[in-house]
């Protein structure tokens, strides 16, 4: 299964809002820690090494 980079979120604005709200009131370090946990949780959910490598490449590009 290739990395899906087509629009896939049912409510893009709503999700973006939730993401920012999760960081509200956090210090820089707390935000970084939250992001790190979030990345790990999502990567585990995806679980497909090839997709994850593609995602890493896409993010780094």
């Amino acid at each position, binding site marked *: 299964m290739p990395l899906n980079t087509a629009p896939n979120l049912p409510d893009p604005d709503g999700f973006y809002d939730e993401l920012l709200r999760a960081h509200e009131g956090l210090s820089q370090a707390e935000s970084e820690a939250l*992001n790190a946990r979030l990345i*790990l*949780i999502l990567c585990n959910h995806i679980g497909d090494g090839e997709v994850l490598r593609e995602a890493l490449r896409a993010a780094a590009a």
Partner: protein
Amino acid sequence: MVDVRYDIAFRLYPYVRVSAQDAAPLRHPVVIVGGGPIGMAAALDLGKRGTPVLVLDDHEGVGQGSRAICFSKRTLEIADRLGCADAMLAKGVQWNVGRVFHGPERIFEFNLQAEAGHKYPAFINLQQPYFEKFIVDEIRAAQAAGAPIEIRGQNLVTGLAQNDGFVTLEVETPDGPYQIEADWLIACDGARSPLRDMMGLGFEGRAFEDNFLIADVKMTADFPTERWFWFEPPFKGAGQSALLHKQPDNIWRIDFQLGWNIDRKAELDPARIRARVDAMLEAQTGTIPPYELEWTSIYTFQCRRMEKFRHGRVFFAGDAAHQVSPFGARGANSGLQDTENLAWKLDLVLRGLAPDALLDSYSPERVFAADENILNSSRATDFLTPKSDVSKAFRNAVLKLAQTHAFARPMVNSGRLSVPCTYDGLPLNGPDALNGPARSRVGAVCPDVPLGEGFLLNQLGRGFTLLGINTQVPDSLTESGIAVTPLQLSAQDGPLAERYLGAAPAAVYLIRPDQHIIARWPLFNDAATRQALRRAIGKA
């Protein structure tokens, strides 16, 4: 003069003047330089095969001090073939449970409980001096039974020259220097390998900017026999991580990761060490039980290896060839696998049964293994010592998530405990023609299996084995002058079927003297077996 560089725990091979010191240089088939665990195991293996071997060590016995404590199942299996595993198992401490803490939080625990149906446990803890002594004890027993092994203590090798067809060594003794010649030389002279330097060979890799304080503490307090590991320990002065692990004789190994910029001398002050140990013990028990400091030292760690482990008539094995950080206990454990790889090859070549080309396979096989060990041990070290803010953020994220989510626990890395490497895709391998289990694929070490009262690995002798499961293999087969030992078994279900058949109804395995699998097929085929054997001895 031969300097004493370290204290001796067991004086096992005192210096004795030999007549060779006054004569013209004598030629030996195999000389081993260095009588650490790896050199002694090599000597025992070769000697039990009947190949004469001389060990030169610059001390008179086994060094004191805290080094290896965790010895793996594969090490015990090798030691069993060599005849000294029972003593190790009897003295060693067995443990299964490990607990991981982050600060004051107990994150999770794991149980190493090895799969059932193996003769040996996943690990034992045993002080390295005992481990070495048991090997030398077995050498003494083998000598008494006629094995051609000689050990010369206080024989310091100071020079080496490779000639056409042999090696000449300069040896210093308390009675002055003499020379020895060797057809083959095994350099087991440790991480600082003077022989490597004499030959001008490199030792490249990575040094980790960290200091580890190691304290072996004797106490009778009633701690459970578990491995406790703290990331960012909550007790005072413990550094970045700490470890508590039990050894025999009521000794506990305590490690503190102190960081890079420390004053080593000040940190080794017993009062300072005691303050640290007190804080750790008090945090765990609420009191400070009485204890004695048995041994303390500070280590820095490297991960590096030589580019090649064979240089003409000289082979490098153990720490001389490769060095890893101790997280994962891969130093002595992997060194033992070096000698087990080399011994049967040298023995066959010395008997004229295999060509020199067989010896060329030693380096690629053991370099492959060293790279796997270095990779594992570097990854553990990177987890323990995050190198940047972001790596620390991820590391701590893993630790936090591991408290509540199972998925994060396998990412927590305080050392991946040593397992033998599978020689995937290397030149001695034959065909993998069976649709069998991955764990017993070509290149792997044979997994152990209970057989009646005993175990499969004990049925594999010192030579090559042809194993037939649910299908006939011939009673005898000799190829290139080498007699292969048949082993006929049957299995419907249970560990043998699971570990060797998988979905296949029957299987034939050709197995090397070091218990690695050469080839496997659904049925016996004479020509294919002979071809695989020729390849496994470097003839094809």
